[in-house]
């Protein structure tokens, strides 16, 4: 928290960053980001990343090099890149303008627009000091085409970014209930702390769900968490479920029609940290509702 406070002092208000691309989810990203901004009273930043690595390289198979081949090749490659980047920039501007219209319509007063030439994960890592929440789509531009369920960048981003990430589906639904997946560990209490510090879910019914045996110790931990979260509003419900973590959470979500699932992406060992935590990964794969991943 001291870190964030210092950042806030140095950089002014921390942004909610909406990661826009050309996918269908981009509009939902705008809507959710606008919703979060209004609730948090934070400024909004629309970010579009030009990921140039995907461009195919031109081929010339003559295999010969002559007078000034290097200079000529350099010039060719530079002008090719320039053309492509110019087009991509233009495309990006269009996307950002569309996104801006959308968030203005959603009731946000103004939005900063940014474009970066980089990979998404490292762009977001660079923006960490001036942001408090990243919003991105569950399905990205390329994953929709490739038929994959989870966006290609999502896992990399979750691994490398140290701010909460709101992962959203393709359609916006105003959130009416929230649940926090809780396991009583120290890291879970850190998630609780993070949650109690933000006004974004204030007043929305909150379910604290612990997957595990119904023991006195677990109940006591839930009570403690409830106490810590009391500022969020009066409507906090506690539940303990047994069984497989992912299935139990999904079942509970279905049962109580929960709109947003909040979970930590902390691993216990370094290997688990590397793999994000397998539960998080599986939750992402099966998610069809928004998910907040706390780091």
């Amino acid at each position: 928290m001291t870190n964030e406070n210092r950042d806030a002092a140095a950089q002014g208000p921390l942004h909610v960053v909406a990661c826009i691309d050309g996918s269908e989810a981009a509009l939902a990203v705008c809507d959710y980001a606008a919703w979060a901004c209004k609730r948090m009273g934070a400024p909004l930043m629309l970010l579009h990343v030009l990921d140039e690595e995907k461009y195919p390289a031109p081929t010339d198979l003559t295999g010969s090099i002559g007078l000034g081949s290097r200079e000529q090749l350099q010039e060719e490659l530079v002008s090719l890149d320039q053309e492509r980047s110019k087009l991509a920039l233009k495309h990006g501007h269009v996307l950002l303008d569309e996104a801006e219209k959308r968030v203005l319509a959603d009731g946000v007063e103004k939005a900063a627009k940014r474009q970066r030439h980089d990979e998404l994960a490292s762009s977001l890592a660079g923006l960490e000091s001036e942001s408090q929440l990243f919003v991105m789509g569950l399905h990205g531009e390329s994953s929709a085409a490739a038929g994959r369920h989870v966006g290609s960048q999502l896992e990399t981003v979750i691994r490398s970014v140290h701010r909460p990430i709101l992962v959203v589906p393709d359609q916006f639904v105003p959130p009416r209930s929230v649940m926090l997946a809780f396991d009583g560990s120290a890291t879970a209490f850190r998630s609780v702390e993070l949650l109690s510090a933000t006004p974004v879910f204030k007043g929305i019914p909150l379910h604290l769900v612990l997957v595990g045996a119904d023991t006195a110790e677990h109940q006591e931990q839930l009570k403690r968490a409830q106490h810590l979260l009391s500022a969020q509003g009066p409507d906090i419900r506690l539940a303990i479920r047994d069984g497989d973590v992912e299935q139990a959470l999904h079942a509970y979500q279905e049962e109580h029609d929960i709109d947003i699932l909040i979970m930590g992406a902390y691993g216990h060992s370094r290997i688990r940290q590397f793999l994000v935590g397998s539960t998080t990964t599986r939750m992402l794969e099966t998610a069809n509702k928004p998910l907040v991943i706390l780091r």
Partner: protein
Amino acid sequence: MLSSIRNTWFSNVRGDLLAGIVVALALIPEAIAFSIIAGVDPKVGLYASFCIAVVISFVGGRPGMISAATGAMALLMVTLVKEHGLEYLLAATLLTGLLQILAGYLKLGSLMRFVSRSVVTGFVNALAILIFMAQLPELTNVTWHVYVMTAGGLGIIYLFPLIPVIGRILPSPLICIVVLTGLAMYLNLPIRTVGDMGQLPDTLPIFLWPDVPLTLETLMIILPYAVALTVVGLLESMMTATIVDDLTDTTSDRNRECKGQGIANIGSGLLGGMAGCAMIGQSIINIKSGGRTRLSCMVAGVFLLVMVLVLDQWLVQIPMAALVAVMIMVSIGTFSWGSIKNLREHPLSTNIVMVVTVIVVVATHNLAFGVLAGVLLAALFFANKVGQYMLVKSDFDDETDTRTYTVIGQVFFSSSEKFIEAFDFKEATDNVVIDLSRAHFWDITAVAALDKAVVKFRREGADVEVIGLNEASATIVDRFGVHDKPDAVERLMAH
């Protein structure tokens, strides 16, 4: 990690496969030619090129760069091979690999920042000249057939790409070799072929420990060669990496590349190959052909070996004239022709650095000496230039009979003489003030010069006061604390 493997290996598969094949076709004649330069059988260069290309594709720090047996390295081995034989070359190759790995761990790749642009240009030009000169033995004391064949080969290489459609699909150096080989066989010309130059590979390379006595004597024989190979191999690799960086607008991991070159050379030495490094010309061909990732270098290595094993009956028939034509193309393509044009625009000191680098290399046949000379010269020119940024102002105060000297700028070995000359020791005054608060003292020479000036004034009977010495001499300390005080640089420039 998975996504980075995808990025560095499989993000451009089609381009990399095609480029790898084009590069392999160009590597075969080069590897043979470089073996001949070094004085070993063509199979030594071919095994080396296979092994280095495959190993570096896994362990290198610059995806898209091609490494194999090179001319720069081959030129350094000539005397070792002549005096002690192939086994000592293999041992020297292993030692080169170890030294390069050591250089990687010591992070010597970052030393490249001391190699200025003009030294790089000089290196590249010298390399091109050496490759060209190495072809001359094949062009002297030969029948007219060879000249006609070589000229025809060059014609094919440069004119074939102009043919619509197929000119862009088939590598013209390959066409040159195929046509000239066919012609030589058909006409049964009395000219030298690759088969006359030594043994070609007939099996897959096998693991071999060099057959040398493990004694101090052996070490002393191979060490000088290994050091030269280490330096030249890393220099050429780092320069090629810079060129590939510029062409592809990406960055490379230099220290990883140093270690990778070392591992590749150890592998080459153990499989009966000679030492190699990154290749400027081939890397340009690779990028031009659309290669971008590690895959293209590996494809080049594997395809090279397959081709050599399948085609060994035909490879021996390749006339040397065809190889010479290809190598002349490589030297023309490697030479930085823009640097000739730039001679008129660039300052004289820059030109001298470039030309001296070239001359030293061509005279010694050792690129390391040329680079050393170039770097030293560039450093001296720089010291001389910065030494001009020193000014001593002098004011006289009648009332107190005080002469005040205000020193501004950089005082170090190059400007210390000018510093002393600025004082008028013959002037008879009671008081002398030397104000150093706007000067920087960079070394002990500067302090000695100040001492000398103070002593001289004292001998003339003046009382000397020195102001601001502490601030001025803060720069003498080798690691003055810029890193722990963020504003140190600004304060230094301001005072």
